[in-house]
């Protein structure tokens, strides 16, 4: 047999095999889920963890048989882009995800400023968006295809601030600091209201630019007001740790709060011992006594992959995939509009262990908020400890 004949025969065999396998290949449909998160800078740890959790959930759904819609089986694929926590990059990410990648579902997004850009384009294209962003302006009846995948200030602050006031009845004043962007501004508005409702005087409410590397003047200014409490609001972990460190050097010793605080490691990386005693509103603990085997196993893998324990921000990127699965199967459709219509009525198993659904009609005018437990944590002896929990 000549070489040409051998090659021709092999090619024909491959072609036949391809046609035979084609039905099997075509049966595996992939739904791309876009992620718009910071993968660089002070908040990069959230973005990396978000990516990890999305991929973990996608893998678990695959192993469980995928998403069944109209006789077809679908699997999720996570596509992550770096929004650098600003609107300009968020716009580029939105365009890349929708126009280049053709995604119709955003599995998760982080940062009010970049998410505003994303939401604007998503709504024009009829895409469904999940977000952990804290801006209240992203929610409501005007945004029918946006759903929130973690607790935000409206849910966290009454519980967190209420607990702090109860623990520190002598604390009468608070100085607030937030990043100078949409997230910080919208968080500040809600926090100011809640502190006021608790009869705590707001002696200062400042903003700082993301990307700041020198926090000494900021810390000096906050300390100059002699507040009993310093609330760093939506400040990411690395920045918050640096600020508390500078406050420690100056000699300020009061109640420390980071509303969006997600874990001890991020604070300790830049704050060292100054992270001790910080109260946080988005941290999650995984003690052997209270955590499930699944939670402990995934958390251990997360620590290997990203270097620290999981937190509420990242867990949202796991829950959104199971919510999407439930809504797609309930709607028996992968059309984003149909899925969005079905989403408010579905229940699914959250990473926290229970079956949950959505709520939020009273606060936001629309059922779009995942009904998640609100957990208050504190750094005690270098470790994150759960000190309060409310299940709405």
């Amino acid at each position, binding site marked *: 047999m000549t070489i040409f004949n051998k090659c021709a025969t092999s090619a024909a065999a491959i072609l036949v095999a391809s046609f035979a396998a084609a039905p099997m290949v075509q049966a595996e449909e992939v739904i791309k889920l876009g992620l718009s998160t*910071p*993968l*660089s*800078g*002070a908040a*990069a*740890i959230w*973005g*990396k963890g978000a990516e990890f959790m999305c991929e973990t959930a996608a893998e678990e759904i695959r192993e469980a048989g995928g998403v069944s819609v109209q006789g077809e089986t679908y699997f999720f694929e996570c596509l992550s882009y*770096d929004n650098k926590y600003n609107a300009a990059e968020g716009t580029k990410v939105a365009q890349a995800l929708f126009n280049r990648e053709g995604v119709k579902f955003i599995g998760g997004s982080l940062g009010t400023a970049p998410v505003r850009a994303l939401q604007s384009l998503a709504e024009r294209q009829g895409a469904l968006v999940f977000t952990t962003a804290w801006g209240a302006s992203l929610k409501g009846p005007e945004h029918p295809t946006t759903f929130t995948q973690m607790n935000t200030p409206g849910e966290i602050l009454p519980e967190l601030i209420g607990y702090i006031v109860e623990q520190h009845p002598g604390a009468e004043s608070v100085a607030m600091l937030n990043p*100078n962007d949409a997230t910080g501004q919208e968080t500040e508005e809600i926090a100011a209201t809640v502190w006021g409702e608790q009869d705590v005087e707001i002696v200062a409410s*400042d*903003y*700082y*630019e993301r*990307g*700041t*590397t*020198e926090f*000494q*003047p*900021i810390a*000096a*200014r906050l300390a*100059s007001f002699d507040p009993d409490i310093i609330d760093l609001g939506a400040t990411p*972990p*690395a*920045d918050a740790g*640096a600020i508390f460190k500078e406050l420690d*050097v*100056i*000699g300020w010793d009061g109640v420390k709060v980071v509303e969006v605080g997600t874990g001890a490691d*991020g604070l*300790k*990386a*830049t704050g*060292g011992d100054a992270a001790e005693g910080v109260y946080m509103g988005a941290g999650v603990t995984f003690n052997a006594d209270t955590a499930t085997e699944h939670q402990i196993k995934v958390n251990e893998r997360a620590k290997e992959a*990203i*270097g620290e324990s999981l937190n509420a921000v990242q867990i949202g990127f796991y829950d959104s995939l199971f919510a999407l699965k439930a809504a797609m199967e309930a709607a028996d459709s992968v059309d984003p509009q149909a899925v969005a219509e079905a989403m408010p009525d579905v229940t699914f198993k959250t990473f926290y262990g229970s079956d949950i659904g959505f709520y939020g009609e009273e606060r936001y005018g629309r059922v779009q908020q995942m009904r998640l437990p609100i957990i208050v944590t504190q750094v005690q002896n270098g470790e994150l400890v759960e000190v309060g929990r409310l299940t709405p």
Partner: protein
Amino acid sequence: MQTFIQLGATTLQIGAVYVLFSLGLTLIFGVMRIVNFVHGHIFAVAALVVAYLLPILVGGGLAAPAAYVVASACGIAVSLALGAIIYLFGFRYFQRDLVGSFILSIGLVLLLDGVLLHVFGGAVRGVPEIFPGSVNIAGAQITVQRLFLCGVAFLMAGILYWTLGHTKLGRALRAVAYDHEAAMMMGVPYARIAFFGFLIASLLAAIAGALIAPVSIVSPVIGTDYLIKGFIAVIIGGLGSVPGAILGSLFVALVETLGGYYFDSSYAAIAIFALVIVVLLFRPKGMMGRA
């Protein structure tokens, strides 16, 4: 009074790093007449290498100060190597070409942004304190780490100033900065002097990066913020002027400190940029510049 002393100490601490950073920028411009945006990445590489190596060395049993010295030496070496490569394969061909060097440095910035993110990851790296504790100087609280940083920064500035004024290399650098053609006619090897000048600037950036690692938030984007402040300091002080760079850096640090304390750090950032506009309008050469 206490407040003013503390603010003064804060100004010096913040200004120290800006001084080291901007000295390198102004030296490159003075000698080669190019604006080097890659300076921030040379600074960042040193900080990242220190942040990466230090925990490994400490975990391996080395004492923190010794580990810091070793990690810093490695960081400075890597930064110098990067600087040498960038010069030999890039800027060497664009000397005294503002437009060409501008485009080249922007391209290198984009390239290095991606490379650093890929190699080091985007997350912040924590660096343990090397010299713990703080001291009280005339009522101002300063950490020992920051005091060390200030000491080294001003020592390096002093050494550079002395070098430029009292050594053959320094005189050659100044000659080239004043009039490179006349210097060449007098036998000054311009190509070699430009290379040394670029390396000295990279060394200053690398030392600044190594010093800042234990006191700042180290990530691949750390160079960008310092680059902006460094350029502002150099513009205010005058491109090509070493005393101008020192003055400009301290001025920027002063505005940042006072603005951040009395108003809001966001207003301080606006004030710094407003200052640049005012200087460019009324004194384009800067306070002490010749360019």
